[in-house]
């Protein structure tokens, strides 16, 4: 099937306006008859479910958490971008668009990104109207800050809890619709398959996580708002429950998977402290404004520190390697996320890492404290320092912080067209679950923007294009053979997992998979390593299906089984990520191939690789087939990033 991104014709600035003026509408009496399934209740899912219900559609919303308010959007700290130009500092829709395209290393679709920048301003209005308590100045107007190295102040924030407040806003809008009876909410429900009938998405199979019962749900359209798949690495900043299952089942039912290899690694996380580590905690990037990153110059000093014979403060100034300042004199410690992350990895690979594991570098505030005084640092970063000392039991005012990169966000996801529809008609993907707006790398404070843009302002219009053709489709009874087949398929998989009764736990397999992915498909990738890793993942997957031990039964609350079925999907996704990384013979954004660099910098290849890789499933033992969506840049000129 040829990919049709359905980008409207016309000037970039006019596309969305024109689209809205001409897209087909569904009249209110028909909306009442149309049922929409929304899976996931993060920013994208909650906002979509609420808005579609407000429009009059019958909505069913699903989340695996015990409440829609707990989706992992809640953990975003920094803020949300919008081209409001309240600061009069020269911001505009165009600049936000351009920064996003450039930040994405020129691997995103222009039309989508422009639309994102356009609706960003409406998001802020909407959120304020809902009661999101954004930070304000004394005069009562909204405050902004600059974020992620942007030259303008366009980031709106609510303390360090912006994601939480935005999600609660969307959650409240959703609960209002639930209270009004317009949305049927299914908490503690996990979607385990998409049901397609005559090539169109017509429903889902969901498991009630309390009773274990499988349920069939019909919908005229299905929206997957199920977030990213960073947990394929086992350790990441994602919540424990974040998973790829919904997107993966869609992929196996015919939806193409776009750019699976693009992974954002965040440079300032609290390092792993032991084998038992279950997740990684992000520290705000703002710390790099005043902290200096270093490791010892010699391996001997690093070893002495690791063994506890020396303290960081024992290392003399001239025995320290402030490697970011050395390598990137103009940006120094503020070098972009991917570059800082890789530099830390290189230092540790060189045997100069610190901390017990040797997988950490120092972020030192001694100079800043000397220069500005402790109270200034306390004012700026007090809560972050508290959090750090809380977790590590070390005092960052006197001992340098230890940091290490961690997987944070996945730019890849289900391929969608301009309407956010996947290659399966009637099946949509919103937010982090789709691949669309961030290209190869996402800018800070843009994830929240995209989730809400998709849910509040894009899907309510674009879904009309499809549903206007569905008004004569009556609700399909769920005893239709396609539902029966899908449910049986899920039941068989669950039974299989439970019947293996091997010797290794699900977590053990997940950790092994994560290690392979991190070592070979993480911050620095090589063709050789990826080839080897593909083999390893396949072997591990085979072993998993022979030897995993899942306790309990299918018809009860069984967290072990939930995990097992998610890890089973990660095992398959991991291979696709490797295949994609192997195919992309260039370095761009969140994909760094060691072979493709110039003086230590990522080397993009726009002539050959300025496309989206959309993968088609061909059976798990067969190679997936890649379809290319060529990226045409009509508005921006492709340029090389330089931070030296």
């Amino acid at each position, binding site marked *: 099937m040829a990919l049709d991104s359905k980008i409207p014709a016309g000037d970039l600035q006019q596309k969305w306006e024109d689209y809205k003026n001409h897209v087909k509408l569904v009249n209110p009496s028909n909306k009442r008859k149309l049922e929409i399934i929304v899976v996931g209740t993060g920013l994208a899912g909650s906002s979509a479910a609420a*808005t579609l219900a407000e429009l009059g559609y019958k909505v069913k919303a699903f989340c695996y958490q015990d409440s829609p308010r707990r989706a992992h959007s*809640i953990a975003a700290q920094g803020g949300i971008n919008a081209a409001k130009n309240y600061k009069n500092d020269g911001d505009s829709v165009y600049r936000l668009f351009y920064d996003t395209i450039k930040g994405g290393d020129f691997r995103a679709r222009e039309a989508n990104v422009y639309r994102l920048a356009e609706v960003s301003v409406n998001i802020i209005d909407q959120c304020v*109207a809902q*009661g999101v308590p954004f930070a304000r100045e004394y005069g009562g107007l909204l405050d902004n800050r600059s974020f992620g190295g942007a030259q303008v102040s366009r980031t709106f924030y609510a303390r360090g809890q912006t994601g939480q407040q935005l999600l609660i806003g969307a959650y409240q809008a959703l609960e209002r619709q639930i209270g009004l009876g317009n949305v049927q909410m299914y908490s503690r429900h996990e979607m385990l398959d998409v049901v397609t009938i005559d090539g169109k998405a017509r429903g889902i199979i969901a498991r009630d996580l309390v009773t274990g019962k499988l349920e069939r749900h019909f919908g005229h359209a299905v929206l997957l708002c199920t977030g990213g798949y960073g947990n394929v690495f086992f350790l990441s900043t994602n919540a424990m429950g974040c998973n790829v299952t919904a997107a993966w089942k869609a992929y196996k039912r015919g939806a193409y998977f776009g750019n699976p290899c693009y992974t954002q690694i965040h440079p300032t996380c609290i390092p792993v402290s032991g084998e038992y*580590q279950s997740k990684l905690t992000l520290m705000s990037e703002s710390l790099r404004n005043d902290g200096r990153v270093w490791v010892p110059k010699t391996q001997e000093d690093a070893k002495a520190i690791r063994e506890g014979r020396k303290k960081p403060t024992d290392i003399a100034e001239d025995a320290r390697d402030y490697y970011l300042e050395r390598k990137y004199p103009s940006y120094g410690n503020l070098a972009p996320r991917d570059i800082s992350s890789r530099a830390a990895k290189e230092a540790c690979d060189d045997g100069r890492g610190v901390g017990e594991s040797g997988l950490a570098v120092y972020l030192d505030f001694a100079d800043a404290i000397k220069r500005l005084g402790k109270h200034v640092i306390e004012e700026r970063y007090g809560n972050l320092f508290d959090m750090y000392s809380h977790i590590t039991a070390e005092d960052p005012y006197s001992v340098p912080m230890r940091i290490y990169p961690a997987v944070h966000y996945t730019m890849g996801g289900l391929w969608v067209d301009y309407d956010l529809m996947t290659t399966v008609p009637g099946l949509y993907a919103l937010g982090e679950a789709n691949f669309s707006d961030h290209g190869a790398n996402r800018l800070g404070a843009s994830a929240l923007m995209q989730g809400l843009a998709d849910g509040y302002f894009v899907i309510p219009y674009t879904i009309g294009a499809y549903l206007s053709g569905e008004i004569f489709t009556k609700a399909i009874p769920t005893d239709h053979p396609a539902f029966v087949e899908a449910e049986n398929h899920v039941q068989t998989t669950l039974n299989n997992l439970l019947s293996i009764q091997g010797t290794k736990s699900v*977590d053990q397999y997940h950790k092994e998979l994560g290690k392979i992915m991190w070592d070979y498909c993480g911050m620095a990738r090589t063709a050789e390593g990826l080839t080897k890793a593909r083999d390893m993942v396949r072997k591990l997957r085979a072993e998993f299906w022979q030897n995993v031990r899942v*306790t309990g039964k299918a018809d009860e609350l069984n967290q072990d089984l939930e995990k097992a079925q998610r890890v089973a999907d990660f095992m398959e996704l991991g291979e696709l990520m490797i295949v994609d990384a192997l195919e992309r013979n260039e370095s761009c954004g969140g994909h760094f191939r060691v072979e493709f660099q110039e003086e230590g910098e990522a080397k993009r290849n726009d002539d050959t690789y300025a496309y989206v890789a959309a993968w088609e499933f061909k059976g798990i033992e067969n190679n997936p087939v890649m379809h290319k969506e060529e990226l045409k840049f009509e508005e921006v000129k492709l340029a090389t990033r330089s931070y030296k």
Partner: protein
Amino acid sequence: MTMNIKLRIWRQANAQAEGKLVEYQLNDVSANMSFLEMMDVLNEQLISKGEAPVAFDHDCREGICGTCSMYINGRAHGPQKLSTTCQLYMRNFTDGETITIEPFRAKGFPVLKDLCVDRSAFDRIIAAGGYISASTGQAQDANAIPVEKAAADSAMDAAACIGCGACVAACKNASAMLFVSAKVSHLALLPQGHPERKKRALAMVAQMDAEGFGSCTNTYACEAECPKGISVANIARLNREFLNASLISEEMPK
């Protein structure tokens, strides 16, 4: 540093089953483990023995989603102030200690299995009125209404609630007043929330009562145990809002 601990954990197969405290010995627990990682280690050991792992709710493990619960040694979220269970570290315990872990207990929070409880009552309270009716597309410019900074800050303080239910668990009356008051306050403090404030207070309190939570006797245990430090000043504000709506305004309860 490692330690050996004895765990007494509430085990209950499902909502209908009888439950009981079961003892487990866990050795070589690192002081740097989070409490939930300690639970992971225990579960791995149980799985390796072919026993059912302990079911417990958790998700973000960074103290913001509000999923984790647990009543640890007689305290909601354990002994540490301003902390969820996932942000509690084993260094808060000592070698040889016995740790008793129970689910949050309240009529409004029925146990589903082991340490998992059903907190959907909170969602129903929000659905009853914990929102501002601003359908998408109706909003005016975000800066059209200035909001006094002090009010915006207080609204944010209240909105920081993560809905974990520790207030209910800690309260001797299993009252949900801190949770309800945080939402009523968040929205009542902002001008955008004013038009619906009377109906909101009436409807949310009615739903809270219908869910079977107790009443507030101002012991302030909720504030002391709240991982986000939500103040009981919000409860006074809810009382004000409710008294005003009930006795002074002409708004009729449903």
